[in-house]
């Protein structure tokens, strides 16, 4: 991708064999396939998928999460659904079960479902075409289909973005994570799934303020891509995944609030992205107020 500029946002041409408006669900509403990807591993894709799923369900949406990280199943654990698994993604694709049998319903949210990854297979058990076909069936019933993409740019990545209407790129304010995000953005554009939107995760406001961490503005500047959310580093995230209750259910968690806001944006609401809120000592805030410089 050496060319300047970027293709303008247009709905990707989706190869579908189904007759009729597959994009509309049972209620005649548009369903959306959203893939959560990153390039670099460990930046927060699974955490994001789980939290957006729960937050969208709380907004009254019918949601299914697909764990596309075959061989490294994780989303079930973060969602607290690991002991309910009977069938998985590969079972559906290879016809060993009906789609409905592999949908695990969440205990607290009757409109939230999970399709777990196979743990004993590898990514070649699924093709991009399989994913398109599967999501076309799911579109009939769900408002949101969220796909948790594996790290890397290989087959698992291609499977996960093949059916996407929208791609969310998760990154951290750190050189190697941003570099990999840039590579992913290029690949997404090359597949006509662009331009994608950015989630900047694990931002430490105090470090940004001291100039020791890339700011959200820096990252947006560098990647030249629209940002849909800024998620702070938050100590509540690990206890949340320890207990299998995503942090967006914790009303006191700042990361939880950030995820809830992203969910509302995905749902079409206008929710302004707050800059890293205030912080600093009183004097610093006061001086920033006086100077009118609060862009951080």
């Amino acid at each position, binding site marked *: *991708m*050496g*060319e*300047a*500029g*970027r293709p303008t946002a247009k709905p990707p041409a989706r190869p579908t064999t189904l007759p009729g408006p597959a994009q509309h669900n049972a209620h005649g509403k548009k369903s959306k396939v959203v893939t959560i990807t990153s390039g670099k591993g460990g930046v927060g894709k699974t955490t994001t998928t789980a939290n957006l799923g729960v937050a969208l369900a709380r907004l009254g949406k019918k949601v299914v999460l697909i764990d596309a990280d075959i061989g490294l199943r994780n989303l079930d654990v973060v969602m607290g659904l690991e002991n309910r698994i009977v069938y998985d993604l590969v079972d559906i694709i290879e016809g060993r079960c009906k789609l409905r049998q592999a949908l695990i319903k969440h205990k607290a949210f009757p409109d939230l479902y999970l399709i777990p990854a196979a743990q004993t297979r590898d990514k070649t058990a699924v093709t991009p075409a399989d994913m398109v076909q599967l999501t076309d069936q799911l579109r009939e019933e769900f408002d949101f289909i969220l796909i948790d993409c594996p790290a890397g740019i290989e087959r698992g990545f291609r499977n996960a973005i093949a059916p996407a209407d929208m791609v969310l790129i998760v990154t951290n304010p*750190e*050189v190697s994570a*941003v*570099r990999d995000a*840039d*590579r992913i*953005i*290029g690949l997404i554009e090359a597949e006509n799934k662009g331009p994608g939107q950015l989630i900047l995760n694990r931002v430490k406001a105090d*470090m*940004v*303020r*001291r*100039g*020791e*961490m*890339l*700011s959200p503005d*820096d990252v947006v*500047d*560098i*990647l*030249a891509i629209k940002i849909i959310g800024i998620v702070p580093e938050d100590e509540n995230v690990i206890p949340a995944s320890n207990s299998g209750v995503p942090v967006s259910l914790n009303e006191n968690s700042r990361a939880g609030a950030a995820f809830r806001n992203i969910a509302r944006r995905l749902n079409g609401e206008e929710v302004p992205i707050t800059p890293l809120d205030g912080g*600093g*000592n009183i*004097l*610093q805030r006061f*001086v*920033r107020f006086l*100077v009118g*410089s609060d862009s*951080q």
Partner: protein
Amino acid sequence: MSGFLDRLLGRGKGSGATAKQRLQFILVHDRINLSPERMEEMKREILAVISKYVNVDDDHVDIALQQGNQRGSVLVAEVPFTKAVEGIERDDPEILSSLDETVPKRDAASGASRPEADEQRDD
């Protein structure tokens, strides 16, 4: 003064700025998707073309990639040269070398335009 203000505002010039600079350099090369050898080849060819018309000061040539608008890249070339070789069509080596002597380097201003890629982006 501005350093003092920065400190008062709690904004340091720390490693974050370094990270940004390094990333901009890395990405501009990642994005162009051209191997270092091909890049060198391109620079050599560009210089060869320019050298057909002017006497290039090889030691001070600077051709480099910079981040452009959006996700594009800009090739910025600074190519100092001594005065254009007017008699070049005549293919007369003696005229060429005499021109070299009559045009002292420091007077012969030079260079290509240098688009300020950074400024374009700060909108």
